[in-house]
Each structure stands twice: as C-alpha cells, then as structure tokens.
C-alpha cells in the first residue's frame, strides 16, 4: 500500500502552504530524502543526465485528515521557507538544512547550521 502524494513545483511551495493555512490545515512535518532528477535511460536518449536531488515531503493535517505534497529540487537549488505561513516550520527547515544541506531561504529563525551539533557537516547528504 502506498500513500497519496501530490507533486508540486518548488516555485509554488509557499503558495501551496498558504492555501493549506487558509483552509485550516496545520503543518505536521517536513522531511527531506535524497533522490535524483532524470534517469540513466534519459541520458541514453540524449536528454538531460540524472542529477542528485532532494525530495522534500510536506505533510499537512486537519483533524484526522492528512495531505502530502512533494517538491523535488536539484541539490544545488534553493527552496523558499514556509515559515511565513506556518511559523512552526522553522525547526523542520533548520533540520533539513543541517542534516541534508538543503538551502532554505527566508526562515523566520535561522540557526545557520547550529540546530544539530554534528561532527560532520550535512551527514545525510
């Protein structure tokens, strides 16, 4: 069994978050996973080669209902913070910055890599 996840573009993540906020959802979690964009077969067909990426999963809830959206970005790209819609997102965003190296812009509280005191920088990258 798999859960339902809706893919959204990175540029519209803040807009999506604001929609959920407006509809009365709460932020349940944000989590990053390593992935890639494109595949080796694409490369053979002369298309873009696969590049390392982050899959960022946002979970919103209302009552017992749970909605998930996923943003996939190349590891070199930046993503907007959703703390302007959900101020409590700062912990999740700092976590994925510290562990994965995701570059999150405009957080309301930026620990600048000091939320987790890890011996190795971005150990999950």
């Amino acid at each position, binding site marked *: *069994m*798999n*859960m339902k*996840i809706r893919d959204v573009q990175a540029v519209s993540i803040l807009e999506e978050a604001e929609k959920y906020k407006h509809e009365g959802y*709460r*932020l*349940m*979690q944000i*989590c990053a*996973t*390593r992935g890639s964009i494109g595949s080796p077969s694409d490369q053979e067909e002369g298309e873009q080669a696969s590049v390392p990426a982050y899959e960022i*999963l946002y*979970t919103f809830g209302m*009552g*017992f209902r*749970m909605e*998930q959206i996923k943003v996939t970005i190349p590891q070199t790209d930046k993503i907007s913070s959703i703390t302007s819609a*959900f*101020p*409590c997102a*700062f*912990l999740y965003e700092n976590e994925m910055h*510290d562990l994965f190296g995701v570059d999150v812009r405009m957080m309301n*509280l930026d*620990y600048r890599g*000091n*939320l*987790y*005191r*890890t011996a190795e920088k971005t*150990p*999950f990258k």
Partner: protein
Amino acid sequence: MSARSVIPFGPQHPVLPEPIHLDLVMEDERVVEAIPSIGFIHRGLEKLVEKKDFQEMVYVAERICGICSLGHGLGYCDAVEHIMDLDIPPRAKFLRVILSEMSRIHSHLLWLGLLADGFGFESLHMQSWRLREEILDMFEEATGGRVIFSIMKVGGQRRDIPQDMLKSFCERMEKMREELKVLARTFLDDAAVQTRLKGVGILTADQAESLGCAGPFLRASGVARDIRVSGYSAYGDVHVIPVVRSEGDSYARCEVRIDEIFQSFDIIREAVEKIPEGPVDVPVKGFPNGEYMTRIEQPRGEALYYIKANGTKFIERMRVRTPTFANLPGLVETLRGCDLADVPILILTIDPCISCTER
C-alpha cells in the same frame, strides 16, 4: 521598559532529565522571548537504514528512546507492514494495544514523578515512581525487558503473552488504580501544587492547533485529537474517548495525563476481555517497495513514521517526527510572558523527550 538580559537555561539543569538549551530574553523576572536550541545528543539513527536491513531496523527504532521504545517499534513495523500489505493476526493487534497502554501508564507515571520533583515535592516524586515500578515489573515478565522490549517485529509479535499472565496484570492494575487515586488527590487537590500549576503557561486551543502541538499538551488546551480514535492496531475494537480539558494551563496538562492513566487501565481490561486466541505473526516474504507514513499516539502525543523503500532489503529513508519535536514551538509560546521561576515547570509540562526529538 526595563533593560533586557539573556539567561542561558540548560542543557544542564536539575529539572531537565535530558539536554535542551533555551536562551531566555528577560525583562526583570519576566520572560519576553525564548529561543530553543537542541542538538547535543543527535545520534543519526535514521541514517542507519542504509546499513541495517528492514528487519534489523526494528531494534534501532526501539532504541530511539528508552521511554517510548515500544511505540517507536510499533510505528516502524506498522509503516513497513502497510507498504508490504501485511495483515497481522488479530491477537497481535490486541497485544500491541495492551503493551502500548502499559507504555502510556509507565510514561505518565514517570512524568508525574518528574513534575513532583520539579516543584520540590520529593515524597510525591518517589511514590509516583514506586507505582511505575509495578508496570515495569509487568513488562519484564511479559517481554524480558524493562526498558527495551524487543517484542515487536515486522509481521506481528516476536512472542505471545499467555492469557493467565494478562489476567494477572489486570488484577494488579486494579490495585494500582486504588493507589493512583490517592496520588491523584495530592496532585490535583493539594494547595501547594495548585499554586505552582493553576493559570501557569496558558496555551489556547487556537494557538495549540496552529503551532502543530500534539498529545496531552494539545488536549489540555481543548482540542480533542487522539490518533487512537482512528482505530489503528486493535484500537477500533476498544473504547477510546480523548481526554480533554479546556483551561490550557499546566494544571490541565496534569489532569489530562492522570485521567489518561485511568483510561489506560480501562482499555487494557477491555482488550484482555476481547483478545482472541490464535497466532501472533505472519510470514514475511520479499522486501518492502514503496512509501508510507503512519501515525500512532505515543504517550507524549502523535508520532509520525515515514518509510520509503526501494524493493531491496535496505530501506531508503526512515523519518520519525516525534511529539516533542512538534511541541517545541508550543513550549516557546507558553514561556512568553511567564516568570523565570515557572520556566522549569513549563518545560516539564510538555513532557520533553529530547532523545526522541534528536534521534
């Protein structure tokens, strides 16, 4: 306006069982702002999915925390079982409910003891923990462990608990119920305790909901959300009504947790009456492939377990969102405007578990 100063609070403090640091921005004795800081005990347990196969990871999940060990094992197994479309036997589901409620009792009694210790009521602290020992003894008889139980596995339970033993647990819990009534009277009626808790650290329902809070911390603010109501494992076959208070203060959080212990006794008794005979596990073939997020009600609140698997014996990503992680923004809100002397008690009222939070 008075001059502002910053007081570093923690990570070492007599009232903190685990390390969390807060920068308290003060105006005289009043907290204006609190900035939380964690990260002292991050162990990178989620990263271990790359080196432990999906069956071995149950042991790692259980070791995320010594208090919520059972819940972490359950959440991990439940997520993998959903990905693999495994329907575990009814007896295993009931056993998971019984063990989860025993875990809730021991966690809440631990918290009550810490709270009593926090406001300097040593004998109440010791009595709470003495009562908790009874539950730990039962855990030891049923699983062989008092902290890490290793009774959960993908596909069911590693071992059954005999019916006679379950019935004897119910009898012993009836005695515990009477002893808890005495303790509860002290926690809820004692004037000195009320002075420290009533009207302190109020969080409204709107604040609790919008800040994403969970568990007794949320329900004490009047939000009736308890994931057990959704009926996971065998919770659909027993009566669960969320324990709610509307005051949103520290006293309400104490009331909710005490009432939840009594409710757990009832749930265990009902589950023992209804538990069917039969096997406690199913064979597991192949490897998980897909992704799933499961949610369970840990003693401290709703916990999320996200698993992404790729069809090999190693899982690609495991992510645990613990209730304390969700409650930290709520804690910061309750600290705003409080007296410095109330800070330790307010931190305790979210029942912080930093081992879980940092993983």
